[in-house]
């Protein structure tokens, strides 16, 4: 059953005064992630937007211990934390690695694959703003087709890398896809993941005002459209069984889905997308949605 907003813990682990941008999807997601994780958590964060959010020495806006680490290393750093704590008999901590799409899909993928293959006992959260936003909007392999970035000025020609398929190939016990536009669904997934042993992976859609080009107060509107168009899908995969959750699940029941153009045309980064690319993306999204529906049907929870 989905937690209701009045049931969320009151404790704030993310204080006002973070260095995140106005309208940052990450700050909305992070606030709820940390509420779900609670006290006995050790974080490890690579060089990325979240490092900046955590603040400049000697002040920090986050009330949980964080071990900053090099860009490529999130999953290896988490592995070391888990191993060290285990060796010391300190078994009541949740070890959480949180990285952006750059640190997950690209430079960090080797360490992540290795940790997942070993079924390292930790939670890995990828906050995906679909580009190297901390360094000024260069493309990552998570950048969707058709998007402008400083290194794809003529729009990105390749599809977004399918990180869920890659992580599924590792046979890990739990994976989920979530959005800060649906914070209660996100919260519940983090709580669930926290209580599972082995490698848990979460993939979160993070709208980014400077990177995507939208008015800062449209964060939630945009996040909801991503899900309404099925360009982002809320789901869980537990021991290989996929089920849709929240809004995506309702969409599966109702059969209603908004056209991708409604989502794309609100963002400056898609200013130069061609009608052919939009049609292609609509077709690609439809087919992908169908595959999710088929798997969801088999979950027995449809």
């Amino acid at each position, binding site marked *: 059953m989905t937690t209701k907003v009045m049931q969320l813990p009151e404790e704030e682990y993310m204080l006002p005064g973070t260095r995140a941008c106005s309208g940052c999807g990450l700050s909305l997601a992070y606030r709820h992630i940390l509420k779900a994780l609670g006290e006995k958590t050790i974080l490890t964060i690579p060089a990325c937007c979240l490092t900046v959010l955590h603040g400049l*020495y000697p002040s920090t806006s986050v009330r949980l211990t964080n071990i*900053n*680490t090099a860009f490529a290393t999130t999953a*290896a750093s988490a592995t*070391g934390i888990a*191993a060290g704590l285990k060796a010391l008999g300190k078994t009541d901590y949740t070890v959480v690695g949180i990285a952006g799409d750059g640190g997950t899909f690209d430079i960090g993928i*080797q360490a992540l694959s*290795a940790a997942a293959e070993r079924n390292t006992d930790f939670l890995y959260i990828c906050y995906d703003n679909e580009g190297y936003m901390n360094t000024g909007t260069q493309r990552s392999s998570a950048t969707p087709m058709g998007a402008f970035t400083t290194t794809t000025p003529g729009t990105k020609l390749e599809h977004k890398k399918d990180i869920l398929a890659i992580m599924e190939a590792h046979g890990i016990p739990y994976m989920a896809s979530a959005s800060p536009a649906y914070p209660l669904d996100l919260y519940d997934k983090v709580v669930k993941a926290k209580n599972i042993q082995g490698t848990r992976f979460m993939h979160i859609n993070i709208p980014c005002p400077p990177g995507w080009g939208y008015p800062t107060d449209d964060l939630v509107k945009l996040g909801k459209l991503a899900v309404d168009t099925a360009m982002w899908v809320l789901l869980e995969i537990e021991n290989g069984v996929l089920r849709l959750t929240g809004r995506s699940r309702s969409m599966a029941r109702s059969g209603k889905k908004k056209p991708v153009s409604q989502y794309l045309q609100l963002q400056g980064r898609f200013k130069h997308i061609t009608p052919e690319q939009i049609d292609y993306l609509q077709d690609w999204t439809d087919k992908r949605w169908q595959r999710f529906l088929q798997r969801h049907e088999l979950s027995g929870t449809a």
Partner: protein
Amino acid sequence: MSKVQIINGNETAAMGAKLCRVQVIAAYPITPQSKIPETLIKYVESGELEAEFIRVESEHSALTVCISASTVGARVFTATAANGLAYMHEQLHWAAGARLPIVMALANRGLGAPWTIFNDMQDSISQRDTGWMQVYCRDNQEIMDSIIMAYKICEQLHVPMMVCFDGFVLSHTVMPVEIPDQKQVDAFLPPYVPHLQVDGPDPININPVMLADPRANAQGVSCPSYMGFRMRLQETLESAGDVILNVGREFGEVFGRSYECLLWEYRTEGADTILLTMGSLANEASLAVDALREKGWKAGAVALRVFRPFPAATLRQALSDAKHVVIFDKNISYGNEGATCTETKAALFEGGLRPTITNYIVGLGGKSVVAADLEAATIKAVEQKGQVSTPQWIGVAV
């Protein structure tokens, strides 16, 4: 009750780590060190060593696992060589800057390109700027003893150390090694106390972004800048010599072999010609000195035991009566000369000493270099009166 075993350098290094009761090991195989992780995993799986052994996918991850495990308070160990060390490079800087007492066994091997699997010191010498302490072993006994001492030194100073030994020459050569008694090692090594508590009452943001100037915290107290933290690392290394000597002396008192020195001297009394080396080459240098002395030369040998922090004052002292210093480097800083040569010249300059200095580049990629080579090179160096200022290479005739 200690006993002697005939073991190679790799087995020695693994056994040293076991005696130090390391708690987390992350090491990736690379020739000529692969036997180290293999031996350690045998100890772990048999229960002889209670440790978490992480089968990482790369050296970069191996050092990262050590960094975060050490941060949370576990005693850690890794081992590598050559390109593996190079792959760790950014994390070497990280480990030292993060002030972590990580101990690494380093089986010296040359770097590609082109490929070599054999010995030279380019790998560790290339990392001398990172803030890691470096010791070089002449034989397998020194590997064992240096690893044990390393934990005591590192955990006092909160600085990491690499214990270097020549790949194949020592890693694969069996020698008698006296194995220290476990109880004695336990008494010698106090438990590791990290300088930050991750599970303390207040959460902490470890190694965050820092600015160039000191900044006040929420209580108005001025906190150091990036440069301030980096200066502290240097200050620690500048005073590390005393700690290294004290631990070396204490080791002698407990185990019977003293390391109360930063360099080794062989027949340097009254010597006017000194052969300077590091690592296993020191053994050949001693033989060369004997041969030269037979011929009536007043020759002696100095071998650096500690390369970082560089023992400038001690080296000046050892070379103060030398008219000729012949420096054999199993490495070269391309575009200049061998690293030991440069650093020795700098040390001598400080003391206003001006012996002739001749630099030989030897043994790269495992090229054999023996006492006769060192002897001949020394004779040549003195004939040249030190007037050849660029490095000369031994053993490259096609």
